[in-house]
């Protein structure tokens, strides 16, 4: 058997074994899951060093591990290991663990299968299968998750149905199902239709607008590890991986063409609209979910630029986003685990109670806001450079995209200020401030991810770009702007050290710790400043308030609109079916008369 099969088949087999395992047997499920994910990770590391690899069946190139799919596979396997470890803590004592670990392992196998597939049919099969496991995993959240899971699968699975159409058109045009080296020009309606239908699949998976609505909806009800693993990291990797595949290998997107502008516009809208929604959220998980949507915009923008630096930025941002968003969700899970709520109103002052979670979450929050020298900054900076490059090479409208991207980044920072304040700073509600850090199984994955954020930021050019990003795109990346991460980090560190020294010399002797107070009076519980209301006023700004109200009514939710239109027709048809036999006979007669007329 070809070695490329192992990382696909082994998780499937392990998943089925776990699924069929009776409830009584304890710990074995966890051990199987852990061993499988360790094994898959080690195989994938081995394969990554041997790349490129491929597997051919008959004349079709079925599986292929090249630079792009190689690094995506590597991170899928790594993330899977982290989530399994995290689940030991989070899912402990929960029901239906055999299903949970079983579906998780199948998700792992299916994702690796989708990434390695070069054959479009094979790809579609794995890709669609992931929709089913996602549906089942969201449903692990209990009875409340039924609606969200349904919505998720209708959007994700529905876009798969459209992808079949795209695959059909590609087969019609090229007489083959192979992805490699198609390079179809987007110069006729058919090719554009094929591109757009395939992009629909990528957008729905990654959660770009307008196919994003399932992510915030699921975030509140699905188990946190599921949200962290699938929509926040895995689906981003898969969706953007596929978008990169279709935009780089399968089609040629010309700068300034309609398709390119569609991509850029969707990216810009996604960034801004989702971050505006994030600003006004009251629930930690939902807030994170809107950011998960917003960040996709940068990746789409990066790939939409079509120049090497932009694409590299998009891919790098995909990786970085997967890392920090994953970390943020894991932290939210840790908070939920301890406090049994993720309502921002009921949290506060956790920095003392959960120091490791606090630090990990802070690093990830700074990274997502694009604060140097963390990884999010580097990739956003590359996307900006891509957009500027687009302007240099004659693209129109680039200023708009650039403004949207930068403005979105600022709003992201603002939104994470709110999050950090509401969750970790401020006062503890009801004085519950005792130290209650989560177990090592739960803080370790988040800490590892925070460490990666720093590592990939400080040594961006030395490690991730050199090993993963640059090899994935065939052209060399040229950097019009300068950013020397290591030097800057050094400077920042020196600044911090100097500041600390000044602080130590100046004020350490007359330090006084006291309860918070206002006007000499100790702060009471009802005077607590919650972060929730930081940006409430923006909901009252004239034009924005209208948009927020529309958004609340689901006017921007493609799912709701689709349903309204559908039920409009359904009601008409139902009225026609009145149950009277003579009506039905009249239809038959009418039908046959028309047939006689048509077929005469």
């Amino acid at each position, binding site marked *: 058997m070809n070695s490329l099969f192992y990382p696909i088949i082994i998780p499937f087999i392990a998943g089925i074994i776990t699924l069929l395992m009776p409830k009584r047997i304890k710990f074995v499920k966890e051990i199987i899951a852990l061993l499988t994910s360790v094994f898959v990770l080690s195989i994938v590391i081995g394969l990554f060093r041997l790349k490129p690899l491929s597997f051919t069946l008959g004349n079709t190139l079925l599986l292929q591990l090249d630079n792009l799919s190689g690094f995506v596979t590597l991170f899928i396997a790594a993330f899977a290991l982290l989530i399994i470890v995290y689940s030991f803590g989070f899912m402990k004592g929960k029901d239906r663990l055999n299903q949970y670990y079983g579906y998780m392992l199948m998700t792992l196998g299916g994702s690796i299968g989708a990434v390695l597939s070069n054959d479009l049919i094979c790809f579609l099969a794995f890709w669609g299968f992931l929709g089913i496991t996602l549906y089942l995993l969201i449903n692990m959240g209990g009875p409340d998750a039924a609606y969200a899971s*349904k919505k998720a699968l209708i959007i994700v699975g529905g876009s798969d149905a459209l992808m079949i159409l795209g695959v059909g058109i590609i*087969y019609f045009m090229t007489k083959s199902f192979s992805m490699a080296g198609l390079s179809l020009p987007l110069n006729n309606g058919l090719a554009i239709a094929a591109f757009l239908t395939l992009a629909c699949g990528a957008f729905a998976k990654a959660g770009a607008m307008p196919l994003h609505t399932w992510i915030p909806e699921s975030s509140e009800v699905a188990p946190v590890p599921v949200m962290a693993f699938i929509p926040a990291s895995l689906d981003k990797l898969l969706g953007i991986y596929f978008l990169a595949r279709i935009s780089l290998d399968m089609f040629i997107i010309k700068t300034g063409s309609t398709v390119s502008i569609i991509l850029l516009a969707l990216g810009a809208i996604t960034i801004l609209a989702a971050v505006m929604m994030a600003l006004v959220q009251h629930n930690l998980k939902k807030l994170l979910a809107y950011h998960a949507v917003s960040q996709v915009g940068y990746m789409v923008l990066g790939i939409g630029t079509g120049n090497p630096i932009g694409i590299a930025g998009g891919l790098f941002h995909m990786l970085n986003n997967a890392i920090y968003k994953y970390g943020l969700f894991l932290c939210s899970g840790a908070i939920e685990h301890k406090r049994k709520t993720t309502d921002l109103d009921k949290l506060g002052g956790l920095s003392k109670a959960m120091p490791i979670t606090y630090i990990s979450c802070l690093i990830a929050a700074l990274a997502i806001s694009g604060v140097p020298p963390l990884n999010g900054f580097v990739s956003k900076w590359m996307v900006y450079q891509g957009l500027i490059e687009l302007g240099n090479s004659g693209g129109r409208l680039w200023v708009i995209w650039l403004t949207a991207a930068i403005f979105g980044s600022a709003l992201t920072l603002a939104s994470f200020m709110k999050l950090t304040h509401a969750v970790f700073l401020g006062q503890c509600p009801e004085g519950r401030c005792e130290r209650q850090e989560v177990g090592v199984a739960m803080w370790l994955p988040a800490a590892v991810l925070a460490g990666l954020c720093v590592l990939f930021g400080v040594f961006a050019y030395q490690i991730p770009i050199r090993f993963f990003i640059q090899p994935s795109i065939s052209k060399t990346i040229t950097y019009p702007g300068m950013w020397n991460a290591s030097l800057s980090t050094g400077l920042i560190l020196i600044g911090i050290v100097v500041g600390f020294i000044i602080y130590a010399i100046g004020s350490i002797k007359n330090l006084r710790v006291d309860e918070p107070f206002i006007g000499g009076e100790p702060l009471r519980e009802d005077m607590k400043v919650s972060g929730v209301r930081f940006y409430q006023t923006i909901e009252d700004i004239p034009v924005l308030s209208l948009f927020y109200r529309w958004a609340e009514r689901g006017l921007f939710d493609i799912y709701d609109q689709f349903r309204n239109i559908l*039920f409009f027709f359904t009601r008409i048809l139902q009225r026609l*079916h009145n149950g009277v036999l003579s009506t*039905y006979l009249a239809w*038959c007669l009418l039908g046959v008369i028309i047939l006689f007329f048509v077929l005469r």
Partner: protein
Amino acid sequence: MSIIPLFIAIPLGAAFLVSLFGRRIKILPDLLANLCTASLGILSLLSVGIVREHGMLVYKIGSWAPPVGISLVLDGLTCFMLVTVNIIAFFITLYSISYMARYTAKWKFYTLFLLMLAGMNGVIATGDIFNLYVFLEIAAIASYALVAFGIEHEELEASFKYAVMGTLASSFILLGIIFLYSYTSTLNMADMSNVLLAKGPGKIVGFVVPLFILGFGLKAAIMPFHAWLPDAHPSAPAPISAMLSGLLIKVLGIYALMRIFFNVLGVSQNTYFVLMILGVISMTLGAFLAIGQHDIKRMLAYSSVSQIGYIMLGIGIATPMAIAGALFHLFNHATFKSLLFLNSGAIEYSTGTRDLKKMGGLNSHMPVTGATSLIGSMSISGMPPLSGFWSKLIIILAAVQAEYYAMAAIAASVSIITLAYYLKLQKEAFFGTLGEGLEKVKEAPLTMKLAMIALAAICIAGGLLLLPQVFDLFINSAAKVLSAGNGYAKIVFGSIR
């Protein structure tokens, strides 16, 4: 000794025995019906091997040679249909053992069931157009009675509507056959095909085609001739709903239509286009109607209208790939639709309701029904890697290949609506909070579980039929018969000598 007449003789004989002794010997109806369908299932699988070896078998009833006597024909298409019908009929009888226990007069049920099966096998195997009509009526009349089996108000009304409309269809079919007979002076399908080729189609074919579209289209529940189905299919007991929706509409409607249009009449491109349009209309409007339903079986019934649309679309495109896709979808739809009806029966058996609004959270109490129903739902919605995905894929690919882009796009979009209403079904019935008064619900009995698990396994493994060797043997050999068109006649007469 040929095996072809056995497909008709065994169920007829079993029906006779059950009606004669079934009343007194309590165990006989269950035993005999299951033995009968099991042996038919095995025989049908054997026939695949026979067809591979001999190509085509013709059985002359009473040793009269074809143009004169009635012949039974076993070719690729026949054995494809026989396998589909008899295998699924076996699982349905298995299911009926427990399910029908709560009805009185099991023996009446099995008598009618076996008569219907004999009629369907007859329609499939016959090579004579009038004989086809006779078998069609046997199956249809048995099904009218079966729909009314519960003899409550609702069942009787549905059965009445079904009977009136079904008879309308039968009479139009008969009218068409009369016209053809008057023109060709023969009733043997192969001979008729030859005569039509020699004499030219003339105006008569143009006149007969709409009659047949109405007649067989009504049996197949193609819009706008579908209106009986949403009443009739939900009213019947669950195994019969499964039989009607899974098999009967395909045998009496789709199969007969395909056989006559492709192999006998050789109709024009125009007609295929009309079939395709009718298919697209049924597909779309059926899905629109299904999503508005709250009665689980009614939703499934409208879904049948919609899925038949996919099959008609494939037939209407009429390229070899599309026909293969349509046949594949026919087989898949037979499995998952009967599975879903059996699931709905299990729910009704355990909870006593068909109303989705009164259910909820059944997964915790009925894990087997829940899991198999999820597999069936995902399969019919075309989620990979289940069987429905592959057949829809082939149909859509074929539509694009034939440059019917709009049809392909509609087929893909309807697939989304299909997913939406099956997820609605899943959510309302199996997920979410437990419905009121359902705390003590129990899982269905063993034989019902076995039947559902077996059908779900076929849905999972359905994609394996795409393996080149299996696909050639099972589906392509059937599709080739249709693609051969008039070549059918040559092969029939060739295999007699």
